[in-house]
């Protein structure tokens, strides 16, 4: 057999292809020129040239989240790598599988403060699941294969591979991927404790006031996990709520779905959490946005937690039963057991529980009054949903009020349709993320629900969108404020609006035109729907400048430091001053 020698750079590309990479998001520079040379006219991998390395990672995240595949990034050394850090942290917090290749100065110059040298593995260590500095060309292929396993197995996350330029130029014998399954972080499926499943199933069947709370782990486990979750909900006929990361796991149209929970969750979801007797957490992590004040979190409940990451169990909330495992494996075992037990004894009647929940629903916590001609941001999202729900739609968002309104008023019937920065809350995530989503789904309707301030953070990506003719629709809820900041200043800081006004905004329509794409503007509720229709009809990218009510607040809300049953539903709600402890919270 002829021994196959390649340059390191060629070997890298070959290894990417072997691992199923079709698209890579990147930006060139001196330290990655050999890699770019290997990509030149490469038929197997499509390179998408972004306009900022942070955007490369977000685009790869959008790609990964909407497909379930690993997203791939290529950046140069020094500033290229440091620019990618926000994206990597974002991917770590939201458990998104990413491979980031970064160039590095040649090995003999490492440590000399060479031009564009940065300690990339040092800087990225706390914001990656794992990282490598390749110092030995013979290990190159193996490291890349291993990185894909690490990024996508167990709890997924970003892996960075730092590639010194001399390694990219070295002669490398290509090594194929071995089919051996990496043990690390891989939960052994057959290890699911049957006894535990039996106890949990019994508990769920005997519960009088059960609730299921699902999160991003269900999405990460693949679409089948979402099917199973919905099946379990239907069998138990119990209420279900989802975190920001989990939206879509149970269809919004499911009659048992109470909407999102947490800081801006619905009244019924939060009160059902507060008053439940048995809580089943599937693939969520008791984030502080979800639990509210911990010492008052679902005080009289037995808690069950399913998570692929053992460290998520008992991290902030101690639970009665922790099950470490992949959501779909555990759910399928649980459903099996529930069905078996169900044949023997009947499920506890939940009539009382449901009538209580229906009472809470009557509060209509997402209700709002659309009066006058100004567009209520809530109405803008509602109309957008109505107009697009029959399309094959993917939504990305930025961070702020618009993000929460999107989560509240846009309905998701499937997983992988909703891409938002949950853990890190990164403004500027949505636009580049939509690039990745649209690349993965060229024929689908991809919409970035944006705020005017967030949009400005990565708007250079308009150029990428135009270059690759991506028909992304940018739906800006323009309130001329960093609305979420303004809201907190109103509620917690005596309406002293320090630096939260978005002054000197560009004319978004002209901005669109300057990129050769279409811009739309609407400021009257009577024209909202036709504008949305127009936006959808336009074949290419669109910036829609939706001028909304400027000082609208996002409700309902659990004020910081408060508990689930201390929600405020509107500005008129008698809102006790936030405690000092609460003020300190982010």
């Amino acid at each position, binding site marked *: 057999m002829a021994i196959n020698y390649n340059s390191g750079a060629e070997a890298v590309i070959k290894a990417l292809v072997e691992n199923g990479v079709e698209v890579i998001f990147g930006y060139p520079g001196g330290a990655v020129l050999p890699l770019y040379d290997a990509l030149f006219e490469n038929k197997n991998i499509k390179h998408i040239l972004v306009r900022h390395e942070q955007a490369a990672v977000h685009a790869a995240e959008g790609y990964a989240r909407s497909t379930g595949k690993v997203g791939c990034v290529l950046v140069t050394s020094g500033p290229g790598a440091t620019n990618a850090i926000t994206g990597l942290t974002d991917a770590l917090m939201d458990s998104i599988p990413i491979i980031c290749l970064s160039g590095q100065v040649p090995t003999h110059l490492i440590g000399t403060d060479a031009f564009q040298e940065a300690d990339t593995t040092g800087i990225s*260590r706390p914001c990656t699941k794992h990282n490598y500095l390749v110092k030995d060309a013979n290990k190159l292929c193996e490291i890349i294969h291993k990185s894909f396993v690490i990024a996508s197995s167990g709890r997924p996350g970003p892996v960075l591979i730092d590639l010194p330029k001399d390694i990219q130029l070295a002669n490398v014998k290509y090594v194929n991927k071995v089919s051996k399954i990496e*043990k690390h*972080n891989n939960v052994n499926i057959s290890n699911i404790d049957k006894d535990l499943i039996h106890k949990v199933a019994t508990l769920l069947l005997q519960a009088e006031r059960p609730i299921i709370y699902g999160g991003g782990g269900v999405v990460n486990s693949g679409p089948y996990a979402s099917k199973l979750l919905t099946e379990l909900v239907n069998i138990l006929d119990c209420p279900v709520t989802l975190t920001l990361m989990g939206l879509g796991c149970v269809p919004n149209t499911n009659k048992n779905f109470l909407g999102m929970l947490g800081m801006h969750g619905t009244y019924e979801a939060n009160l059902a959490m507060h008053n439940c007797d048995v809580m089943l957490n599937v693939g969520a992590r008791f984030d*502080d946005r979800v*639990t509210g004040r911990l010492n008052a979190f679902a005080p009289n409940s037995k808690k069950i937690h399913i998570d692929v*990451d053992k*460290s998520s169990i008992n991290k902030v909330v101690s639970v009665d039963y922790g099950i470490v495992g992949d959501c779909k494996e555990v759910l399928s075992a649980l459903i099996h057991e529930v069905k078996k037990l169900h044949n023997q004894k009947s499920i506890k009647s939940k009539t009382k529980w449901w009538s209580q929940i229906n009472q809470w629903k009557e509060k209509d916590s997402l209700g709002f009054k659309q009066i006058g001609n100004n567009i209520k941001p809530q109405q803008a999202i509602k109309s957008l949903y109505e107009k697009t729900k029959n399309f094959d739609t993917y939504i990305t968002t930025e961070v702020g009020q618009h993000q929460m309104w999107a989560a509240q008023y846009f309905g998701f019937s499937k997983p992988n349709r909703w891409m938002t920065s949950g853990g890190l809350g990164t403004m500027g995530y949505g636009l580049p993320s939509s690039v990745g989503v649209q690349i993965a789904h060229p024929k689908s309707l991809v919409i970035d629900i944006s705020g005017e301030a967030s949009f400005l953070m990565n708007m250079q990506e308009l150029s990428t969108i135009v270059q690759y003719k991506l028909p992304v629709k940018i739906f800006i809820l323009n309130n001329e404020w960093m609305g979420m900041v303004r809201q907190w200043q109103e509620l917690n800081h005596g309406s002293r609006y320090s630096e939260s006004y978005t002054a000197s905004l560009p004319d978004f329509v002209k901005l669109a035109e300057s990129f050769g794409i279409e811009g739309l503007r609407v400021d009257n509720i009577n024209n909202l729907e036709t504008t949305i229709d127009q936006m959808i009809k336009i074949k290419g990218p669109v910036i829609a400048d939706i001028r909304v009510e400027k000082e609208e607040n996002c409700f309902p809300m659990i004020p910081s430091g408060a508990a689930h049953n201390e929600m405020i539903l509107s500005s008129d709600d008698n809102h006790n001053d936030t405690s000092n402890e609460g003020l300190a919270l982010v």
Partner: protein
Amino acid sequence: MSVYQKNEVEEVETSRTLSLIVDNQPGTLARVIGLFSGRGYNIESLTVTEIDKMRNLSRISLVTRGTSMTIEQIKSQLLRIVPVHIVRDLTLEGQFIKSELALVKLVVKGANRVEALRVAETFRARTLDVTLSSFIFELTGKPSKLDAFIDLMRSLGDTEISRTGVSAISRGNKTETKLLDQI
């Protein structure tokens, strides 16, 4: 920990000795230490050296302090680190031996020289270096024994101390050979 304060009666913090098997690879130690500093856990002592050249494995002996919930958290967080293969909680497993080595330089003259030698003898410390005005003692054993010795030395004169930190191993005839073979 979450930013939200917990009101439950906090359990007492205890000292725990963990024993880790990790790949001897650049960055591993940085990840372990980064985990402790990044998440606000304590490190009371940490030692690390290669123990298996063939397999390129090192042992980290680590003494930390926390409530049992925190310790469980530390252990599962450590296991998330890719080059960390085994995390053993020696304190929880049962009886174990904890040993440390100290080098103590004592600058001392006159009558205190005799006293220093007598203390050293009682502690079974070895004398590694002698000048007319100083000694260097080497002492191994439990950290508490080392503490006691060093306290006495300090009262006798000016000292300079170097300690290795705790190295630990479980008692009895059980070994890790099988676990290591699975790595």
